[in-house]
């Protein structure tokens, strides 16, 4: 292909110097835009759910509460996140490799299938034909079209993932990059592999259930739960891998964060691929269908090797940030790299908050609750919901938001609208979801159930009275929830206004520093360092991060054994 032909279908990014394929750019845009639309539906549902669970307001009637809960789960956990991830895959597989998009028509087919499937699901849910919650546990039954919608969406997503693999092959064959895949793309690759595993499980559960819903075959409730969670939990592991890849991306873009060891980080990603799908068992620990040996082996991802991977990234990402900062001259003491960091850059603050909330709040609680016996204390209480709002919302969604502040100028070529508001957004969203999650976790420790319309049990045959502190926790839950929702709405406002009505970003505005974009776009930090500088950085290491990870480990150990202590005090059972 002549260079002219390439020139016609691509442009060169003036910030990163990367070649941007036009059809990849368009597909990234549409997928990202639909992701935000789905997010908006999910947020709208969240408003009503918070105001219903807050017993002082108790907004929705019971049927609409469960309907909104169904919509919230699907839009947030499936539609928003997977549309966004498809955009991330196209970015990492095509743009980052200076390559071209293979078979754009297929990319549009995948997009159409996903939009059609998601649309069908939305219609079924909002018309009250699928009040089965996100999990649709058999024998709860939805309209067959509901399952069909999910199947169409999953097929589309699978095609999108396959196009990412094809893009990697094209880039390698056409030699658009030298050496190995960048770590970020490698991380995206692991997310894509996990996505295939997830979507195959999706087919294994939804296709039989589709036929079951038409009375054409039998479906065992326990087998359904096993297969569903091989989809449902694994899909959250796509998020983990994609989120960690974004952490590395943002570390590089915002402060020139370096990769300490390609080997260690890549092994950690590899561990995700090998072990993370076993976490289906997290949902089945107090189920009658599985033996203790099966539960222990699977819930621990074969001896916690996927947890090990997260513990590794939890060190290498902040350590990479620390060393990047030290290389840029912020060398004083243990923590100058933190105090002199670009805290006004929503890409950076979002990155840090995502790492902290995911690790300290989501990670510690998740591993603890995923312990076979400790799960007795927590299964289906609000502790579970609190945990995964810390991981998926405080971790993944916040990382996606943070990277969006870079995607807007780099892909959409627009300035960030309401930039001063955007600077505050990660703090608002992060603190809100933290308060929300902790309030949920504590309510769950008092036994407040998840997915429950009426914690006052007004019409139940026997009265249930929670201690008064639960009322306080409901109020803090509402405050945290409203803060997080406000943060989410600001994010949507900024993203939508930037993309559709934003001021076009010009090279001149970047050059003279007047563009309202994150500082990493105005002046990209160095992405490579000389041998001598690298040796110096390695010698200094990341002492500040080492202190932080030991604080983390201390809290982890404390929380974990406190839970064993609590367990030892309840009725003997076995």
């Amino acid at each position, binding site marked *: 292909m002549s260079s002219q032909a390439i020139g016609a279908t691509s442009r060169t990014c003036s910030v990163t110097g990367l070649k941007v394929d036009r059809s990849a750019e368009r597909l990234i845009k549409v997928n990202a835009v639909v992701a935000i639309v789905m997010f908006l539906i999910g947020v709208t549902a969240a408003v009503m759910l918070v105001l219903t669970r807050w017993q002082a307001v108790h907004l929705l009637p*019971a049927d609409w509460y469960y309907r909104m809960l169904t919509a919230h789960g699907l839009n947030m956990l499936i539609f928003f996140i997977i549309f966004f991830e498809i955009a991330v895959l196209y970015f990492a597989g095509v743009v980052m490799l200076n390559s071209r998009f293979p078979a754009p028509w297929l990319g549009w087919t995948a997009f159409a299938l996903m939009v059609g499937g998601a649309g069908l699901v939305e219609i079924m849910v909002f018309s009250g034909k699928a009040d089965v919650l996100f999990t649709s546990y058999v024998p709860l039954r939805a309209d067959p079209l509901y399952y069909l919608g999910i199947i169409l969406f999953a097929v589309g997503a699978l095609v999108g993932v396959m196009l990412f693999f094809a893009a990697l092959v094209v880039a390698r064959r056409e030699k658009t990059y*030298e050496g*190995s895949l*960048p770590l970020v793309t490698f991380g995206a690759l692991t997310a894509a592999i996990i996505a295939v595993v997830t979507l195959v499980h999706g087919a294994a559960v939804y296709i039989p259930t589709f036929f079951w819903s038409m009375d054409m075959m039998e479906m065992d409730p326990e087998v359904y739960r096993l297969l569903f969670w091989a989809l449902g939990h694994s899909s959250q592991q796509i998020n983990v891998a994609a989120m960690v890849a974004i952490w590395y991306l943002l570390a590089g873009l915002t402060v020139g964060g370096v990769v300490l060891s390609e080997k260690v980080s890549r092994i950690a990603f590899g561990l995700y691929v090998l072990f993370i799908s076993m976490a289906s068992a997290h949902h089945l620990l107090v189920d009658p269908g599985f033996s203790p040996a099966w539960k222990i082996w699977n819930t621990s991802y074969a001896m916690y090797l996927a*947890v*090990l991977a997260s513990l590794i990234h939890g060190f290498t990402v902040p350590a990479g940030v620390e060393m990047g900062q030290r290389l840029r001259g912020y060398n004083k003491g243990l923590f100058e790299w933190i105090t002199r960091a670009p805290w006004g850059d929503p890409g950076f603050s979002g990155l840090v908050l995502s790492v902290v909330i995911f690790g300290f709040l989501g990670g510690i609680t998740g591993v603890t609750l995923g312990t076979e016996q400790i*799960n007795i204390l927590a299964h289906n209480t609000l502790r579970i919901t609190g945990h995964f709002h810390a991981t998926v919302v405080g971790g993944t969604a916040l990382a996606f938001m943070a990277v969006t502040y870079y995607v807007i100028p780099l892909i959409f070529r627009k300035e960030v609208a309401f930039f001063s508001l955007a600077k505050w957004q990660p703090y608002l969203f992060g603190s809100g979801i933290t308060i929300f999650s902790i309030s949920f976790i504590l309510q769950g420790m008092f036994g407040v159930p998840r997915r429950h319309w009426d914690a006052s049990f007004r019409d*139940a045959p026997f009265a249930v009275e929670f201690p008064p502190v639960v009322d306080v926790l409901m109020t803090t839950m509402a405050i945290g929830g409203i803060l997080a929702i406000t943060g989410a709405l600001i994010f949507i406002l900024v993203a939508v206004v930037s993309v559709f009505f934003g001021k076009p970003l010009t090279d001149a505005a970047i050059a003279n520093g007047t563009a309202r974009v994150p500082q990493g776009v105005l002046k990209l930090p160095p992405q490579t360092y000389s041998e001598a500088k690298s040796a110096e950085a390695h010698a200094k290491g990341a002492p500040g991060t080492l202190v932080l990870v030991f604080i983390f480990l201390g809290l982890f150990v404390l929380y974990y054994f406190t839970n064993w202590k609590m367990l030892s005090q309840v009725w003997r059972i076995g």
Partner: protein
Amino acid sequence: MHSGIVSPKGVWWTPAGKQEKLWVTIAFVWCMVLFAMMPFWHIKGGQNPAGVRTRVDPSAFSDRVDRFNQEFRVGEEKGFPVVAPPPGADVYLMGSMWQWSSVLRLEKGASYMLHLSSADMNHGFSLYPVNLNLQVVPGYDYALKITPNQAGEFRVICNEYCGADHHNMVGRIVVVEPGGKEVSHE
């Protein structure tokens, strides 16, 4: 050295730094502790969700529940049979939309084999305020040996969504001191 955006050139399979090795080692050891705790608790601990797990036909389980309710029935409350099985007995509790099959009266310190199952949907057995939670799945008999360690009033909250009236599905368990004196909670 470079960021994660840059394609590494040449051989990058090189030894990790000292700090990374230290952290990976400690993290690995911690992971092994996490793993070992679960088998350890099966041997030494008193709370394990193991039990005896068998498949059961929902109608057969329902019949068994009826026989159990008749055999040990001591009264009625709000339309539910109040059942007081002797220590050591097999206890059958069934969830159905949207109720539990009986009010149970148990003795503190006595052990019972609690059989849980469902007539229809998935249900959740959440013992309040102990905060002891189990999944109740139709077609499966989940039998667990339980030993109440306190007397008093308990509730069984369904904490698995089971349809329109899920939030009203609450049962009652009373634990009395050995000898049968009921503790008043007024």
